[in-house]
């Protein structure tokens, strides 16, 4: 296959002529935050010793039978309601048959013909507009275990702790038209699941996984092009990069007069490219059929009503509330509510110091920058971040009280992030408190004026720019601690006096 990066002049001309539209559908697997597995009583706790969280049921011993965890059904209904789905009054669990060492029964219990939720949609914010992405279906299934290949040279090992962890598979319609839409859809979906408190949304740990179906078609046409399924997308970045790579590959192949084949491709993050895993001819025949060990999942209206009534505030609602209640601009409100942990952090900070705008600015500015710089933005919950909400708020309160300047605050913030200590402690220890008493500022100014007679003369001769220079010298001499407002006043007075 020709590399998509090597375009010849000829196809560059074609590309200019033929415009393509991207068509993307996403399949998300969300691990559910239940206490026990989907078909047995084993714990779902992460990080246990290999095969510690297993029993005859989740390891596929002879004779065992599955019993559906009711919590999983409840979580599926919650997700369905939050994404405007129809909830099936009767749905079925089905067996997906294939052999693999991490699949103890030789089949995965999933849903096939009658999923629990269908025909939903999620509204995704896109640069001030809203894009509606339809959901085909949401269904319940069990996770497989993990094969470990590089621990022992002569053998592969299997850890079945994950086997039987409940998953929701959330399948979108091919409504997504760009990587940006894909990213925003995933972030919105993840936020909804986090707000519902049913999934922690951690992509790197695999509790929120995404496969992408990607194809392109000439702009203005409606038939779907040949699609590929992309796997191994372990981060938001991987999703974007892999889709971008595929779109480019598709367009270049088609522009070259080549043909695409329907296949599954794996994203290789080291080489930043996708490669073929299996083609359609080698696709599995999973021989789905209804699992005779499990009864149809029958859901009555009353239960759906109860769950609907207990739904928490969702990202859209919270965003609207932040805008009206705290008078925060839409863009900031969107940023703050895009993750539940961030929105919680924001509201928690407000209980210490009620200055929504300043706190919002600090979170979306300094806090996000620092998280990104330290490559933590996708990894940690903000609630686990060393700068606790009350400390950030306390620091902002210190600015408002004139005890520290905005500039010093950035130093304090970095120190809080490094140490996790309170701003008061840091300010006291490092002597960063702003100097506001006129006497010491006056003293400092006198010294500066005495040391710079030429500049003083220039200023008095009418060179206004010198004022800024002098202020800079004063701040330098006071290590930035002089209250800038006071310093300005006194300096102005002194220069006039001297005149």
């Amino acid at each position, binding site marked *: 296959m020709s590399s998509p990066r090597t375009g010849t002049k000829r196809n560059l001309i074609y590309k200019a002529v033929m415009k393509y539209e991207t068509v993307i559908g996403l399949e998300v697997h969300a691990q559910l935050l239940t206490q026990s597995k989907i078909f047995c009583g084993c714990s779902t706790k992460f990080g246990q010793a290999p095969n510690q969280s297993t029993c*005859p049921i989740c*390891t*596929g*011993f*002879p*004779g*065992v*039978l*599955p*019993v*559906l965890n009711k919590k999983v059904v409840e979580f599926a209904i919650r997700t369905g309601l939050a994404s405007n789905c129809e909830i099936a009054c009767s749905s079925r669990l089905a*067996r997906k*048959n294939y*052999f693999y*060492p991490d699949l*103890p*029964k*030789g*089949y995965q219990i999933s849903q096939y013909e009658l999923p629990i939720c269908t025909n939903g949609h999620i509204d995704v914010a896109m640069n001030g507009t809203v894009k509606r992405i339809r959901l085909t279906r949401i269904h319940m299934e069990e996770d497989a275990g993990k094969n470990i290949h590089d621990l022992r040279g002569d053998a592969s090992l*299997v850890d079945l702790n994950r086997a039987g962890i409940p998953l929701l598979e959330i399948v979108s319609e091919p409504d997504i038209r760009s990587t940006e839409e894909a990213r925003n859809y995933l972030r919105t979906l993840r936020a909804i699941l986090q707000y519902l408190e049913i999934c922690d949304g951690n992509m790197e740990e695999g509790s929120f996984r995404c496969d992408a179906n990607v194809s392109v078609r000439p702009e203005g046409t409606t038939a779907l092009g040949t699609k590929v399924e992309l796997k191994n997308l372990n981060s938001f970045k991987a999703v974007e990069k892999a889709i971008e790579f595929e779109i480019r590959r598709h367009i270049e192949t088609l522009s070259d007069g080549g043909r695409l084949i329907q296949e599954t491709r794996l994203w290789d993050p080291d080489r930043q490219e996708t490669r073929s895993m299996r083609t359609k001819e080698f696709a599995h*025949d999973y*021989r*789905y*059929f209804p699992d*005779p*060990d*499990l*009864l149809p999942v029958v859901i009555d209206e009353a239960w759906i009503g109860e769950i609907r009534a207990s739904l928490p505030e969702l990202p859209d609602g919270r965003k609207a509330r932040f805008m009206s209640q705290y008078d925060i601009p839409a863009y900031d409100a969107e940023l703050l509510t895009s993750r539940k942990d961030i929105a919680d952090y924001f509201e928690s900070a407000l209980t210490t110091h009620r200055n929504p705008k300043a706190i919002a600015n600090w979170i979306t500015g300094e806090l996000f920058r620092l998280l990104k710089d330290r490559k933590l933005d996708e990894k940690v919950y903000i609630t686990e971040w060393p700068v606790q909400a009350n400390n950030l708020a306390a620091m902002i309160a210190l600015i408002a009280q004139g005890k520290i300047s905005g500039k010093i605050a950035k130093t304090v913030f970095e120190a809080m992030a490094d140490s996790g200590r309170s701003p008061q402690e840091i300010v006291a220890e490092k002597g960063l408190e702003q100097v506001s008493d006129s006497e010491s500022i006056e003293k400092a100014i006198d010294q500066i004026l005495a040391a710079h007679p030429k500049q003083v003369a220039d200023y008095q001769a009418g060179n206004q720019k010198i004022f800024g220079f002098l202020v800079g010298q004063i701040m330098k001499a006071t290590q930035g601690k002089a209250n800038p407002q006071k310093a300005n006043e006194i300096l102005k007075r002194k220069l006039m006096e001297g005149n």
Partner: protein
Amino acid sequence: MNLAALTLHEAREKLRKREFSAQELTEAVFRRISETEEKLHSYITLSRDTALKEAKQADERLKTNNNPHSLLGIPIAVKDNFLTRGIRTTCASKFLENFISPYDCTTVKKLRASGAIITGKTNLDEFAMGSSAENSAFFATRNPWDTDRVPGGSSGGSAAALAADQCIVALGTDTGGSIRQPAAFCGVVGLKPTYGRVSRYGIIAFASSMDQVGPMTKDVRDCALMLEAIASYDPADSTSANRPVPQYSASLTGDVKGLRIGIPKEYFVSGIQPDVEQAVRTAVRQLERNGAAIKEISLPHTDYAVAVYYIVATAEASSNLARYDGMRYGHRARAKDLTETYMLSRAEGFGPEVKRRIMLGTYALSAGYYDAYYLKAQRVRTLIKKDFDEAFKSCDVIIAPTAPTTAFKIGEKTQDPLQMYLSDIYTIAVNLAGLPAISLPCGFDFEGLPIGMQIIGKHFDESTIFGIAYAYEQSTDWHKKKPNL
């Protein structure tokens, strides 16, 4: 007194009266086993040592308990597809030849709690797939009435052990007739309860939508007592029924007056052995004399039952047996890579009938064939169920032969799977419909082989079945006949 020949209710009474101890009873059973096992091969595994230990404990409990459980101190033979902690469970397969389960199935757990004594694990067709017990990976069990003949299957070991007094009662499983047909062939009583009546948890699955645990006993009263002991709602089995268990033994009144018995015309057609038909018709006339009303009925989709069964059951089996992959337990072949490990482990571990059914079922579920086979079969299955619903509007039970013939010769049908499949022609529809049905002795053929009569009831109406079976049994002494070994 030959203690091993006692029924459950006789033995229970005498244990209670201290005429003998559970240890004496158990020893008598094992003496009988050692006298006859050479000729029969009913058991795959005997658990003599633990059985005697359990008998000793039972005697302790009998001393202090004035109202003991009906199974306390009773030696029971268990089909080798019930998982038993501490006793290996092979399912008559090379694949599980050395498999020891980490847990007890729900039924065995109940048996142990009630103080029953497990004599051992009886032979069966590998993974319960067969009608003669010849598909065992280890050996064929022989019919105590004629050791050149099969005991039936798949619960052939349990039926033979029971008929030969190698136990007091036995347990089997019935997916397409696997309790009733061997019960008929060996001249004992066997019940397939309503689907969902007895927990399937811990039974090695063959076809999940039809597998059902049931008792095999020397008479009808024992059968009712056994069902009382093993029937229950089991939260571990989603398909088990959450409804109260009646006192079945209370329905043994001997009175059948006014009961309506349906005789399905489709069950008395060509292929049936004449003396089998005659015995069943004679038995029906006997019930009529006792006051039952007899009526011919029709089950129009009967002809399709075998075909439907061999699609649905094999489809489910192909998936149920996927777990035997050589990864975690059971047979594992030496192989060079993963694919070869799968292929060789299964090639070496499974016998030919199991492989045949896995292939059939895999085919029936395959893309492009699913609609034509599996889905179509499920639709016809619904029609078969409706046949019974319709029939039960005008009758309380349906009576038919259990099998079209008496026990056939060992080797007679092994080369022709279709002929073998047809020996379940009268039992299969009951499993497809999830109904309860009993087989009980109703005579002997001209060669002296037992004949079984099947009484099919409505869902969860085992009581009516027991009532009629008991009334018939009271008017005959077929059940008291013993084979000469």
